[in-house]
């Protein structure tokens, strides 16, 4: 995963937070801390805009993204088509707006899947140790041994193209990060006195894990999800670019770039727009994720 490893972005943020004394609980405090960083707020606005336009795509898009008007094909930006048209005369702006649906849903759903698998296996391994831990740890090592794009390609090759399969492939791809971190944290938390107290009081294992250990891992999990999404979006774009991801006529940014490539010599403009859309989205998630990490869980910085 291209998880950003620096994250010194909000340097100024820490200075702002030190004066705070009235506490509104952990999450409220974190939000207050984060709101001091203009870049993070800006990225949040961009994300909100993207999500809104993805949800309301049918109302916002000026044209039907699959409607072909061959007479209007490969037109540059103009009054009729703000971002021009593609080789089938379809409106590029509308296709970009609909493409946001694919990218965002791939980001969210794949991380949801990865998170569910990873948290389940990670907490079991960390809590029970022994054989459970050995099995899960080896599985993590083996899964992590495949370079991510290669692994995604392998699964897509087996499952066949399509959005649902992209969800599954990317979910299976990134569960190891969740499992690894949750395992480590649960292992530590397990030794805490309050956990021991719970055990002594006769709390069931499931109850201890769900009610007492996982809530303490929450901030780590939230940060991982936010930083996992941009990686998933990039991988989806790559898959669709080589034709293993979302299939035409559904609009997806990666696949638009792939089609546009045939026209780079006389209509370069077509290639640029979907790429810019990807960059803006991924950038916003990365900056927001960095900010969130610094506010919620600075230990994740490495």
């Amino acid at each position: 995963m291209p998880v950003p490893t620096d994250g010194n972005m909000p340097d100024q943020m820490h200075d702002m937070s030190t004066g705070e004394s009235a506490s509104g609980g952990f999450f409220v405090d974190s939000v207050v801390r984060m709101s001091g960083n203009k870049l993070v707020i800006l990225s949040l606005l961009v994300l909100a805009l993207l999500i809104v336009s993805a949800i309301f795509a049918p109302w916002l898009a000026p044209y039907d993204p699959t409607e072909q008007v061959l007479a209007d094909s490969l037109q540059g930006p103009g009054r009729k088509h703000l971002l021009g048209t593609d080789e089938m005369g379809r409106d590029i702006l509308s296709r970009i707006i609909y493409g946001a649906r694919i990218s965002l849903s791939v980001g969210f759903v794949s991380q949801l899947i990865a998170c569910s698998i990873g948290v389940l296996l990670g907490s079991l391994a960390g809590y029970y140790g022994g054989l459970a831990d050995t099995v899960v740890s080896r599985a993590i090592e083996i899964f992590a041994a495949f370079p991510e794009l290669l692994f995604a390609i392998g699964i897509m090759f087996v499952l066949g193209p399509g959005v649902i399969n992209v969800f599954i492939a990317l979910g299976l791809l990134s569960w190891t990060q969740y499992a690894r971190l949750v395992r480590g944290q649960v292992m530590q938390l397990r030794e805490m006195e309050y956990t021991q107290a719970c055990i002594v009081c006769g709390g069931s294992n499931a109850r201890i894990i769900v009610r007492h250990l996982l809530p303490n891992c929450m901030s780590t999990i939230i940060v991982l999800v936010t930083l996992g999404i941009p990686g998933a979006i990039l991988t989806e774009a790559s898959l669709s670019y080589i034709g293993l991801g979302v299939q035409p006529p559904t609009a997806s940014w990666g696949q638009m770039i792939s089609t546009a490539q045939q026209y780079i010599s006389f209509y370069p403009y077509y290639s640029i727009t979907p790429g810019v859309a990807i960059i803006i989205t991924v950038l916003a998630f990365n900056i927001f994720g960095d900010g969130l990490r610094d506010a919620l869980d600075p230990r994740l910085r490495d």
Partner: protein
Amino acid sequence: MASYILKRLSQTFIVLLGISLVTFILMNVVPGDPVLLMLEKRATPEAVERIRREMGLDKPKTTQYLNFVAGAARLDLGRSYFTKEPVMTALSRRFGVTLRLASSAYAIAMVVGISLGVASALQRGRVFDSLIRGGAVLGISAPVFWVAIILQMVFGLRLGLFPISGIRSPNSFVLPAIALGLRYVASISRVTRTSMLEVIGQDYIRTARAKGLAERVVILKHALKNALIPIITLAGTELGNLLAGSMLTEWVFSIPGIGKLMVDSILMRDLPMLQGTVLYVAVVFVVSNLVVDISYAFIDPRIRYARGD
């Protein structure tokens, strides 16, 4: 030390076995009969049966897997369905090309990434620092294949400086190496900056300055040397990523390396070739991680003891 290496080696062995199993399963759950894929529709049932026997596909799956592992251990990965060329020959022929591309990209990533990271740390808080950091976030946010296409458009088509496909001229590697290296420039410079900032705040740097050493010596010999450990870890992981991830770049620039071989064999459904390339890339990845871990233990003695588990 020896016990640490031994431990890592045995772990790697288990992971390699796991990889071979995962690869084998992946290739065996692919829909469609490989023999039918290979022979097209006209083949008689007898011919299909004969080829199935020749390829050992009539044996139970466990035997097939053991044969696959035994073959892989002898560097025999079968033959391509279509060209009939042994997979190993194709891999070794193309390895040189990928290695050339990956090592140029790697050189760019290390030299440019570390220099920018150090410069950015020294200029902390100034405009230059913000520019580098902004550029780095941008670099990790851009899809590699798109950057490759933009480079083709600007430097190949518009300015006509470099060829945009193939490997015929020595200049052919310039654009692909930049396209591939760029995102690693970004990640290396970020880690270098963070690590340098951490080290520069240490007491021994103040001591070095206090005893009147030249700033250049303080930065290069005292600070950078100690800041290198996280950089080396990342550099190691990225080496594996680079060798494995040159796929898209090779595809965009039509460079006949391992990555293009892999995409081609996916599109042609050439299973043995695909199996071989997947296995190859995973092995390269695992072995480079192993080498990094071991060299890491040489550099930082704390790891030998702490990272046993």
